[in-house]
């Protein structure tokens, strides 16, 4: 089955009852499909009913009379190629409207783009009077939409004014808009006017988008979000103003956002914490849209994607590198930018290569390393939102270190020559870049001088702690293997321990048990159909009750920290166990029956006092560290 839309999914699921079905998906997700379909197909893939090849395209289909099946399908996958023997190939590639026929009816299409849909009015009337276009032909694929719209059209034809089904919902949302008088269409038009980003949406796409969003009217001076917050929604500024604080140490250095602009897009792309604080100005009116909705929009409307990408680029350059640079120069810089994708462990540039440009990490992260005496010494770790390779902008010396992608990474490369020209014109920019470069060299030298420290860091990084925000470590010279940490975890979490103390690697008495690292870029989060995995404001990655037990997160986690199980509602009584034996709190088997849901460490965010494992360790062997504290730990300043 080739295709990832609703039709492909429904066909695949139906056929899999009596056939072996393989579904070929051009992308990495099924986000064009309805939620229910997406959940179903993911479940089928999970249980093995249907096999799925993601990120593939078909290179050839050929008949194989001698082969095991009638034909074989050759694919180009993300990693290489694959060959699948098949009996049938069914393509559900979506439909394009029969443009020629529709045009011959006199209906005008707004552009030559084969994907474009005919322009219709708010009551679905085309430019041909009396000809109404609803449903898929108008760009609304869902049956419910076609039915609702059809009903509305008939009512209109009959002369009765009808309100669209979503009008009351939108009215409620727009109530917060200043100056809103109750006319939804009016408000929509005004929003479209004010937001160039949304200008390319059809009225109905806009309604869909706004249905999922919220209107916010913060007071002047209120922080819309703060730096290092873990929120991930997208904000469109309708009116008033907002300020981005670009210097965390100096809150007076700000960039103003004007109405019609948007912000918060960094978290969309890279899934990391907010890089800057944004403060509301006078009369600030915002539309806050959740991440999924915005992603969906980006994927459906090419113009939106383009605008967001461009803005991201400009902003990244402006905030990271070129503050105070005139917009025209910025545009020139942005024009020289190219986007590159790297798989995990792919090298961006090697030590000794000529310096070609500066790399701004858009999503993912990279490791900077050096070869010292034949060993790879990790010098630094650069996450998304920061840049690397600035040396090329300053001098002509070849690269002094190798930079490798730690996980799947997207980087924007700014051409060195263009940047150098801009730096000539802005001396303070050059100074800033030099200053950062010097501090980087200093810390690199420090790192290479102490390779043992690097050994522990290297070990910790390989355990994925480079992307951890908070991880449990155990000092095995103190650990008496009493398993109290596991019992504490289980006892406070429905008798299902999220910690496996014994499993996990050890390096020089430093043991990393199997437990969630609360990664900066959680692998588990990216594939959760009910969106049950969230990051709490304190930074903990937790799985909410919405979990349906599909197990994607368990598979996606490279550290194996997620397990599926059923939580008990009742906690066994401690005194009864002490006196008479039986179920030990935190140790017994769960007698509950039910669907197994995903469970992993949530840093005991609901329990006062902090992580139960650390509090319960009698000898003090368990400790939770965040990456800043690694250095202390790895300095050999273990004291037991």
């Amino acid at each position, binding site marked *: 089955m080739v295709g990832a839309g609703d039709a492909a999914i429904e066909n695949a699921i139906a056929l899999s009852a009596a056939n072996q079905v393989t579904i070929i998906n051009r992308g990495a997700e099924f986000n064009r499909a309805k939620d229910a379909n997406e959940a179903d197909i993911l479940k089928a893939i999970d249980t093995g009913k249907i096999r799925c090849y993601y990120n593939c395209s078909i290179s050839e289909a050929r008949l194989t009379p001698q082969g095991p099946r009638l034909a074989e399908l050759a694919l180009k996958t993300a990693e290489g190629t694959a060959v699948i023997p098949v009996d049938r190939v069914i393509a559900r590639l979506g439909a394009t409207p029969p443009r020629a026929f529709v045009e011959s009816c006199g209906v005008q299409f707004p552009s030559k783009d084969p994907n474009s849909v005919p322009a219709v009015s708010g009551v679905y009337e085309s430019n041909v009077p009396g000809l109404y276009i609803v449903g898929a032909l108008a760009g609304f694929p869902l049956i419910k939409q076609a039915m609702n719209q059809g009903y509305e059209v008939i009512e209109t034809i009959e002369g009765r004014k009808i309100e669209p089904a979503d009008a009351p919902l939108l009215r409620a949302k727009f109530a917060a808009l200043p100056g809103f008088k109750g006319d939804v269409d009016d408000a929509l038009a005004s929003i479209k006017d004010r937001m160039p980003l949304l200008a390319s949406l059809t009225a109905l796409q806009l309604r869909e988008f706004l249905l999922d969003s919220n209107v916010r009217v913060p007071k002047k001076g209120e922080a819309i979000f703060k730096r290092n917050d873990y929120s991930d929604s997208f904000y469109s500024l309708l009116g008033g103003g907002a300020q981005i604080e670009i210097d965390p140490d100096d809150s007076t250095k700000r960039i103003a956002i004007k109405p019609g602009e948007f912000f918060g897009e960094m978290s969309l792309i890279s899934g990391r914490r907010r890089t800057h604080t944004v403060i509301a100005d006078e009369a600030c009116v915002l539309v806050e849209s959740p991440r999924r909705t915005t992603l969906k929009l980006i994927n459906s409307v090419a113009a939106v994607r383009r605008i967001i990408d461009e803005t991201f680029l400009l902003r990244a350059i402006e905030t990271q590198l070129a503050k105070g640079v005139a917009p025209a120069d910025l545009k020139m810089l942005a024009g020289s930018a190219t986007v590159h994708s790297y798989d995990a462990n792919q090298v961006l540039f090697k030590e000794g290569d000529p310096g070609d440009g500066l790399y701004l990490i858009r999503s993912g992260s990279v490791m900077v390393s050096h070869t010292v005496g034949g060993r790879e010494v990790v010098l630094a770790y650069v996450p998304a939102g920061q840049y690397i390779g600035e040396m090329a902008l300053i001098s002509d010396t070849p690269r002094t270190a190798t930079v490798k992608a730690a996980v799947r990474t997207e980087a924007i490369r700014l051409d060195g020559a263009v940047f150098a020209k801009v730096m000539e014109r802005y001396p303070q920019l050059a100074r800033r870049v030099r200053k950062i470069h010097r501090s980087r060299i200093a810390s690199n030298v420090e790192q290479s001088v102490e390779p043992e420290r690097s050994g522990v860091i290297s070990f910790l990084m390989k355990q994925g702690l480079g992307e951890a925000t908070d991880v449990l470590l155990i000092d095995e*010279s103190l650990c008496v*293997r009493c398993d*109290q940490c596991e019992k504490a975890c289980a006892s406070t979490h429905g008798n299902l321990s999220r910690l496996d103390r014994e499993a996990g690697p050890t390096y020089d008495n430093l043991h990393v048990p199997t437990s969630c690292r609360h990664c900066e870029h959680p692998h588990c989060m990216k594939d959760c159909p009910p969106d049950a995995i969230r990051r709490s404001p304190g930074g903990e990655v937790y799985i909410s009750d919405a979990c349906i037990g599909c197990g994607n997160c368990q598979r996606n986690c490279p550290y194996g920290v997620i397990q599926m199980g059923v939580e008990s509602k009742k906690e066994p009584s401690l005194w009864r166990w002490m006196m008479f034996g039986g179920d030990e709190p935190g140790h017994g088997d769960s007698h509950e029956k039910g669907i197994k849901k995903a469970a992993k460490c949530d840093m005991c965010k609901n329990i006062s*006092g902090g992580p139960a494992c650390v509090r*319960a360790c*009698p000898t003090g062997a368990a400790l939770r560290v965040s990456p800043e504290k690694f250095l202390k730990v790895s300095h050999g300043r273990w004291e037991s």
Partner: protein
Amino acid sequence: METPAHVGFLRHHRYRYLKIGLILCALSLLLYAIHDPVDGPNGGTWLGYGLGSIGAGLILMLSWLGIRKRRYRGGLGQVKGWLSAHVYLGLALVIVGTLHTGFQFGWNVHTLAYVLMLVVITSGVYGIWAYAALPERITALRRGQTRDAMLAEMAELNRQSIAVAQALSSDIHRAIARSIGRVRIGGGVIAQLFGPAEPARQEFDDLNRTLNVRADTLMAGQRAESEAESTVMFIAGQIVKRAGRDEDEAAHIRQLLDILGRRKELVWRINQDIQLHGRMQIWLYLHVPLTLALLAALLTHVISVFLYW
């Protein structure tokens, strides 16, 4: 440099509880030295009552560790702090309790409580040593594997050794199978603490020797034959074939010896691991029941002393 990231329970809070324990001991000794009651020091003087109350309070608090460490939600402080207090104040109890008795002992429940207290504390001292010395040894021995992984690896080695032995001869195959059956891991209390008896040690050594000898013979044979080869060219084909077979056999034997050697080392490591774990926990089987007996004796002591005041 800044303060270290974490410290163990003995150093907790810069030895806070060690300091408190030492002060308590010093104060008790001082007061005992200067206090001179009419009929000699005993538990019924004001100092005796004071030390007795402190001692009883300490015993109750120390016993409470068993509950506190299993209260995973809430609870005062960290368990590490409780354990640190438990260790140091428990040691101070030796002084406080002994001074409370005024060195008056007899065959009664009062001395029983005192003796039980001393035995509990002594077993605790062993526990301190065990907790300080054994964890590192366990880690060094484990080499990063879990116990289940070691056992699975042993099963794997067993399987492989059978597979290789099958390619050799049925005698060797039987011997290997017997040897597998005679491997002893863990066992009862004594076996866990001191290592299980090895019932087939002799047989295993014999098997090893036999295989070594055979391998050597084959190697020698090969060399001898390669010399003879040049002179007896007409049976060269036969010799070459046999050499091939012998080569195989020698290789298999070497492989088998390798596997057996690894298995022996692994079994030894597993049993060492079991021993260390056992020695780290054995004292608790004395410490905990006697604490309960101590609590009963303490209760009886307090009641009887004031019943017949």
